């Protein structure tokens, strides 16, 4: 580990930041989902970094589980997008507000 772990964590933070902006600012549901994937990966990077720093592969396991959960999340998210789009061709999440209370 020639590069100090702080650098990796900072990189992870930057990626997280970009992801957050993407989720909040974009209105295309697919791009929002992709931004969420970015968030997951930023977190994973931090996990793997600490796993390497402490030589404990619990971090790897956790990252692996995150990947799995991300797969489930993406599948459901895409299914919802597909169904919504099939009903009415909206691609703007602001126009989809069936959940309004």
């Amino acid at each position, binding site marked *: 580990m020639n590069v100090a772990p702080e650098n990796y964590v900072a990189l992870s933070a930057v990626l997280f930041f970009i992801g957050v902006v993407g989720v*909040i600012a974009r209105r295309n549901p697919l791009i929002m989902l992709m931004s969420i994937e970015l968030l997951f990966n930023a977190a994973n990077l931090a996990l793997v970094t600490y796993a390497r720093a402490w030589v404990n592969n619990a971090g790897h396991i956790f990252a692996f589980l995150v990947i799995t959960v991300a797969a489930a999340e993406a599948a459901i998210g895409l299914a919802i997008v597909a169904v919504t789009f099939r009903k009415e061709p909206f691609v703007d999440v*602001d126009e989809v507000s069936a959940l309004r209370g």
Partner: protein
Amino acid sequence: MLLYLVWLLPLVGGVGLWAFGPQLKSWAGPIGSALVGVSFIATLFLWRDATAARALDVPLGSWLPGWSFGLLLDRLSLIWTLIITGVGFLIHVYSIGYMDRDRAFARFFAYMNFFVFAMLTLVLSDNVIGLLVGWGLVGLASYFLIGFWFYKPTAVAAARKAFVMNVVGDIGIMFAIFLIVAKLGGIGYGLIFANVGSAFTPHELFLVCLGLFIGCAAKSAQIPLHSWLPDAMEGPTPVSALIHAATMVTAGVYLVARFAPLWSASPDAQELVGAIGALTAIAGAILGCAQWDIKRILAYSTMSQIGYMIMGVGIGAYDAGVFHFLTHAFFKAQLFLGAGIIIHALADEQDVRRMGGLRKQMPFAFAAMLVGVLAISGVPGLSGFFSKDAVVYGALQTGHPWLYAVAVVTAGITAYYMFRLLFVTFFGAYRGAVDPSDLGIRHPELAGTAASPGHHPEEEEPHPHAPGWLMSAPVAILIVPTIAIGWLDFGSNSAWKQFFAGFFPRAADAAGAAPISEAVSTLLVLLAVAIGFAVAYARYGAPAALRGAIARLRTETIRMPGVLVNAYYFDAAFEALLVRPARALGGWFDRTVDPHVIDAGVREAAISAQWLGHLFRSFQTGLVRAYALTLAFGVACIVAYYALAFGGGR
């Protein structure tokens, strides 16, 4: 590994027959029987392991340190397992014939197999928790089987009564287990017995034994928790034979024998158990003289005989008590199955007053019942003689002359009512065609003697007929041990005494030598038996008595003392003391607490939830990005907290 098989095969049968009963149809019976039979054979193969110096102990798993669960097959549980699976197998086979016309054939065998599994759990467990689980499951199986004909209100009531009383016993055992765990922190038998002397004060030990004995009293129908057993005869007769005679009700005997080290260390508890056992023995025997229902007579005799066993194990004559269990399992199963043949042949007639003269029509049933009656009465040479003698003399050996006297008297009464049963049923003329009122029977349906709707009586001719081979073969097989098994305990250094040599604590020997020798004692018992037989013969068996049988039965029925007919008013007392106050309390809760406290609480909770929902509805904008923003705000807050708390260095 084989022990797992012994233990789990009946469970497989119970679950499988329950699940696939409709598909299996008439195969359910043979399959259920075969599973128990295989279990029996497997147990035989384990004989050597069980009797080795270190008994077979198979671990199952552990929960906490000191809380490991496992199966234990030692000499005591081996005897029980053999009886449960062996006699159980015979009764299963018998049931194929007995239940042939029942609609719920498969369900019956599912319950029976489940019962065998539960009973094996009880006796094979190597810890108190497993014992309690088996204890509870056995009660459940008994509940199922007593209420098997659930369209009979009496059966349902009997099942409920049995269950409730058994639960009283379960609570006693739980109390004992709590005490044990609180004192020792472990549940294994080995741990408990190793620390009997050091971990408990005498007072605590007495409490543990008392708790355990409450369980025994409930399961084994000891006074005052006995009154469910006669009612349990509402179940099918094979059930009565297997559960309420041969195996389940003797679980109390097993419990006392299993915890022999505890009892031996607590003389007070021993005195209590011995006294209760003797009391039950004589009380049950007296009630047996007053019954007319063939199964109820046998039920009271069971109660009485278990009283003997409990007395035996209670006063410290453990091997004698267990031996009486062994012989009783055979001859009582024999008696019940013989009675079942009669009941089956007479289209569910159970009232002995309406029988009579069956000796000629049903010679096989007569032979079977005769052997059983001779055995239970203690006629020399048959099994009951040896075991009863051992128990009775054990009372004297351990220094309990009063209990000894009670036991001898009870032996005489036993002979009286068993021969009464035999004479009334098989001798004289057939009274099935006599009008019930001539016999003094006022309300046949209230007396519990009406034909039960379990079969389809309309299809059957109520005439005595020979049983099928499926019913007669098990009875025929049972005749052999009923006669011969007693010889295991013949002589001072018998096979039985060697089998249990050193297994049970023999602290009771110190009580001093008995005032009379065993031979004299045997003669005394035989004298009592002879008197009992003579009275029975004079009243019911002599030619003169047989001629006026109908009138005699009528007067006897009418003049029966109320205290006997109502079984010492135990049920009435329970009704007045427990059931009515409980009902009243329940009614008060129903009228007051339920609507004004519980319902109101729920209602108010619902209203406030609704109000909260209205409040939070405004946050639900449906804008995904607004949600995301809120989330981001939350993340920012958390990060800010960490940055402020830990950001300044470590």
